[in-house]
């Protein structure tokens, strides 16, 4: 495998609240390699979006990074100044948001958005930037005449493509896509995924795909990381993970995906509720809901380690 673009080591993010500190991300280590699509899945509130924002250092207060390292192309992002970090955003790491309806400034034309992004990071004249913007949206399958349209004149799918265009405008090394298909209907979603895959091949993009939609991950990702309660539970190649999930949480997650070929009885619902992140259960955070929990799970937290070649998991079952 090629060298890692991004390496996260023992990242911890806290949200101090009135009732206690929420450990949004609790010691996550992860490497993203050049040219791969890493799917980051988990239920709502497990910290996957927080991961995305933490990498860009755009956490909303009171959220803050309290520990760990984020090494991007050999530099620790947590040690950069605010200005260095700003210059890195968009140029080296960019982000695609989940709601294309509201992620473009309603008072700026499509061209303004792209030109502005290009000019923020480069010396291009407005003419050059405009030309590049035109090329860009052409590649994304939007007619060039739409360049001077306002966002409200575009459909949801087109806006999402403009958003990708913005993320691609400066050939960023890493693209974080935070639930990019959540608000799209299935047809647009399929088109979008197709396009993203094409672009990924074409430009050898490195993407972190944050989603709760297992189908999207299966479609697009090379490797999948499963998150639960701010921790990584399992990390594996997408085929291995779907064929043979190791961690009981992953198994539960895959079983709870509705499938047309399953009868009603086969759709399994995972019991219990997501854990309270202020007072998380001792030991393995999943053990109160785990169908295969053993005594040890209640007292000791399993380490996240390579249990089989290329397969990482945090579970005592594979000791």
């Amino acid at each position, binding site marked *: 495998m090629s060298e890692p673009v991004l390496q996260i080591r023992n990242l911890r993010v806290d949200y101090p609240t009135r009732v206690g500190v929420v450990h949004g991300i609790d010691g996550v280590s992860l490497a993203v390699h050049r040219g791969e699509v890493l799917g980051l899945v988990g239920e709502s509130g497990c910290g996957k979006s927080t991961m995305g924002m933490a990498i860009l250092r755009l956490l909303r207060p009171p959220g803050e990074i309290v520990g760990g390292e984020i090494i991007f192309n050999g530099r620790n992002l947590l040690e950069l100044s605010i200005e260095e970090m700003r210059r890195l*955003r968009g140029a080296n790491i960019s982000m695609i948001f989940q709601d294309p309806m509201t992620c473009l400034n309603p008072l700026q034309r499509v061209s303004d958005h792209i030109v*502005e992004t290009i000019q923020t990071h480069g010396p291009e004249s407005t003419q050059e930037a405009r030309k590049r913007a*035109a090329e860009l949206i052409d590649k994304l399958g939007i007619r*060039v005449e739409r360049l001077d349209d306002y966002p409200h004149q575009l459909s949801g799918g087109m806006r999402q493509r403009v958003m990708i265009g913005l993320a691609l405008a400066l050939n960023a090394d890493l693209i974080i896509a935070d639930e990019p298909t959540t608000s799209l209907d299935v047809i647009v979603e399929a088109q979008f995924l197709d396009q993203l895959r094409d672009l990924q091949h074409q430009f050898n993009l490195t993407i972190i795909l944050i989603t709760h939609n297992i189908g999207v991950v299966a479609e697009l990702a090379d490797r999948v990381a499963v998150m639960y309660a701010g921790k990584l539970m399992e990390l594996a190649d997408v085929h291995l993970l779907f064929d043979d999930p190791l961690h009981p949480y992953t198994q539960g997650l895959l079983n709870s995906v509705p499938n047309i070929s399953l009868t009603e009885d086969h759709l399994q619902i995972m019991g219990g509720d997501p854990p309270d992140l202020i007072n998380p259960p001792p030991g393995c955070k999943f053990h109160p809901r785990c169908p295969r929990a053993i005594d040890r799970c209640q007292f000791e937290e399993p380490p996240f380690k390579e249990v089989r070649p290329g397969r990482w998991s945090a579970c005592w079952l594979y000791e």
Partner: protein
Amino acid sequence: MAAQSIETTPITENIGLIARFFRGAKWYGTEWYITVSGGVILVLILLMTILAPRLAPYDPVKPVGSPFTAPGGGRQVLIVQTGEEAVREPSDLAGVLVGVRANSTGQFRVLELEAQVKKFYEIEECFQALTEGQVDALVVEEHLAPEFMPAYDDRLEQVGEPFGRTFVLGTDNLGRDILSRIIFGARAVLLVAVLSASFSALVGVPIGLLSGFVGGAVDRVLSLIMDSVYSFPGLILAIAMAAVLQLKMQQVLEQVMATIGTHLSGDQIAVMTGTMTTTAAIAVVYMPTFFRIVRGQVLAIKQQLYVEAARSLGARPTTILFRYVFPNVIASMVVIFSVNIADAILTEAGLSFIGLGLPPPTPDWGYDISKGRQFLPAGQWWLVTFPGLMIILVALGFSMFGEGLSEILNPRLTES
């Protein structure tokens, strides 16, 4: 990629500006009509202020007729002794001794006709004097003649038709022409209202932007200051501000005039001081409205995904402020601006009323309303009605123009 062939020029129809203007009716629908109506009102009022000396029929600060002449009234009739041959029409009056009531419309008319005037205080005295031959003719109000003539039916006769100009909107308690006062008053009103609203916007909006955008301690302190200003009753604060500023303004103005070597009369100084004081006082009162609205909007817009998206693409904070936040605030700013102008006119009226605004003879709608109000119970409705209507019209013009414009300028709301 065949990128070279891509044409980036926008496709727009090549039509003239005027054609575009009228096509706006189709593009924007109702909003266009509202905006254009508001614009027309404002342009007319602006023309009125510029052309005031040509439009106004009378001097706005001098008595030109009887007090409380009803709208449309003011014409005079000429009365002579029966059989009098020398005086048959108004133009014969030059050099003739004419009896009039003191400070009545008749007195001013007769003076214009270069007659000699003998003034009486009661209307009966006039008729008495004419019968006794003290005067050669009488000039009295049109509506008074039928009231008193019957008593002297055999000795006096009315000659010619009623003559003289009328007061379209009547006269006030001092016999000044209301129409002229309204036309000249537009100057003071527009100047003070527009200036004060602009000043409060000029201060309130940047502070609001800063406060909302920076947040934290800066926000707390600025909000506290602005809220403390806001907590005062508006008019009371304006009165206090005006009282404090008035003397200082006058000193400053005199110093400035002395420095640049211009000499102004006491009246001119008083008018300028009044304008500046009122403007400053009202500006302070309305600053918090701009601040609060803008700050609130900024706080809301800051949370929008497009701001976050811009940030994730490395936009500078200044770019976010001026290209993402500020343009989205303008729409509500325009609306507050137009509403504040209407408010400012009324506050200015209040200030003038207690003698802290423009000095009294200066024509000023607000002052005229305040003064005219006391005569309303007696049935003299025209003193308050017409300046009041003008205030409504100006406020309406600004509101329609402002709100319509904010709808049109907002690309989200336009159909394409």
